[in-house]
């Protein structure tokens, strides 16, 4: 994890060996098992993984949104601008939250308060952090709505969340998140529930905002196409660990981990017409009972005896790239 070098010195966000458990009384679910990645200022870092990979739990851990119980952070560090997020005092965190880090969620309807108007909720960002008050906060909210592309913002600011379509609601959430000009925006599956044309609009909006303000984006998604489109860096997660990371072109164009390779082989975009899709055999593991050794070994076509017993260390297959696999070199050269 620590070999993922990005440019320009200290990273904006650094997650190291994060471990999160869910204790349900009957068993322990190891949602995150030693995940780590870095985000440099101004870049878009994607965390790519399927259900159960631990990507959303990691994001929630970074934003200190996990409820304890049943979730417990049992190891690792999260550093934002060098400060330890997990141990800092709550009021210090509250100040950072919104002003320097913000988050956008998948389901805007569930994340917005249904009984307050959209303009009020955005203005609340300002009021809560002591910037602007009253009327001026309201005006700034309208400005923000215009910035994110909502037509007729002055009137729409008085509307309630359910009066907006899915794409518009997502824009509202983005407006709320960027209101105070954060340096880092975490977007958890921001476009998964949206149509493809709306998805394109939202991703373009995020790109524009990033260029304009220089903020970094952590994009959590399962959509390979979105990652290929907008991200600079990608960390691929499986069963709670980051199994491969590096620049997007490199990782997706020339993978070094069997899981990434298999994932790329399984999408229709990867094929010529008439070829059959090549799915990954089986299903993701039960996170309460992760296989010994390498978590992916039951489904991996490169698996050997070693993979069943020993957890693979990170292997640097090229500068700035690594993969956690005993056979990383073989996979890398397999193309």
């Amino acid at each position, binding site marked *: 994890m620590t070999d993922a070098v990005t440019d320009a010195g200290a990273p904006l966000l650094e997650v190291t060996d994060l471990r999160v458990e869910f204790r349900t009384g*009957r*068993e322990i679910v190891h949602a995150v098992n030693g995940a780590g990645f870095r985000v440099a200022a101004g870049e878009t870092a994607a965390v790519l993984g399927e259900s159960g990979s631990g990507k959303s739990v990691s994001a929630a851990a970074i934003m200190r949104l996990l409820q304890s119980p049943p979730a417990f952070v049992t190891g690792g560090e999260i550093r934002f601008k060098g400060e330890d997020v997990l141990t800092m005092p709550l009021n210090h965190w509250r100040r950072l939250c919104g002003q320097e880090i913000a988050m956008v969620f998948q389901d805007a309807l569930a994340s917005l308060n249904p009984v307050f108007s959209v303009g009020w909720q955005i203005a609340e960002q300002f009021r809560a952090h002591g910037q602007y008050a009253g009327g001026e906060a309201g005006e700034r909210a309208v400005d923000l709505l215009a910035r994110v592309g909502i037509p007729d913002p002055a009137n729409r600011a008085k509307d309630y969340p359910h009066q907006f379509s899915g794409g518009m609601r997502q824009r509202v959430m983005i407006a709320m998140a960027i209101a105070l000009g954060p340096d880092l925006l975490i977007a958890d599956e921001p476009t998964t529930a949206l149509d493809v044309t709306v998805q394109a609009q939202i991703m373009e909006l995020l790109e524009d905002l990033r260029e304009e303000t220089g903020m970094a984006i952590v994009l959590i998604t399962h959509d390979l196409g979105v990652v290929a489109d907008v991200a600079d860096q990608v960390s691929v997660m499986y069963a709670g660990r980051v199994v491969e990371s590096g620049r997007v072109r490199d990782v997706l164009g020339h993978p070094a981990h069997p899981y990434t390779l298999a994932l790329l082989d399984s999408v229709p975009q990867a094929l010529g017409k008439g070829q059959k899709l090549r799915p990954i055999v089986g299903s993701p593991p*039960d996170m309460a*009972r992760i296989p010994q050794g390498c978590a992916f070994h*039951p489904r991996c076509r490169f698996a050997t005896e070693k993979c069943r017993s020993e957890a693979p260390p990170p292997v640097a297959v090229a500068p700035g790239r690594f993969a956690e696999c005993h056979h990383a070199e073989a996979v890398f050269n397999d193309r």
Partner: protein
Amino acid sequence: MSGDPNMAPMIGAATAEQEAIILRERLPWWRLLMRDRFALVAALWIFVLLLCFLFGPELFGKAANALNLRGRNLPPGSIEQGWMMILGSDALGRSMLARLIVASRNTLSVALTAVVLAMVFGGVLGLIAGYVGRGVGHVIMRFADIVQSFPSLLLAVVVLYVLEPRVGNLVIVLAITRLPVYLRVTRAEVLEIRERVFVDAARALGGSRFHILSRHIAPVVAPTLLTIMTVDFAIVMLAESGLSFLGIGIQPPEITWGLMVAQGRNYLNQAWWLAFLPGVAIMLATLSANVLSNWLRIVTDPVQRWRLETPRDSDD
């Protein structure tokens, strides 16, 4: 296709490790009961009541009717006069304990029958009203409105006064007054459940209305009705008590807890236990029915039950 056993798998067969499913050890119901202390106590109490119901009048009938004019209105708590008097005695010196046990049969049979009748008829009407809707549904709902708009006690009084206050009539009247609740709740649940995708799937398979109602909708509604039944239990017992007090419920020498409460009202100052103890009996019966029904809800719902079971490492 339809499952020709000679047909090869269409996609690669996976090993158990590859196609992991989240396993739990299947526990038999009595193990689950042992785990839940409250439910266990409730089940034991209900078992005791069952024994009283089956054997009470035969074993304790004599003691319940044995007059003992020297031991009248004995307070509970002492066994000077014998074990029978541990809960005291009434105005005629009869053992409270024996009378409570004997009365359980009538009480439980009236209450259970009334509640079950209300649930069955109310539930069926609710299923029809919810699933068929339109004209039939409207008619059924208006019927429920009419029944509910009569004060139930008044309705009972009128009916029982006109007809004889026989046990059968009493049960029917009690059932009718409780019916609308089951009807409405069932209908409301049916309206929601019938929109679910697995109901669509069953319709697309060609399932008749009856098939869908019985296999998909009724099992989902049943737990809710079960819970209402346990609460209704107490309501019916107390309603019966009120009617008995008015003299149109159970007639002496037949005895129920409700009638005992009614009879004991006049002696609240001198002999509080005459009304209190049967009241406690009603409360304990309802409480255990309630606790046990909560446990039953969990046990009969595969998803909830699964959460109570312990995880295991391998398949059967």
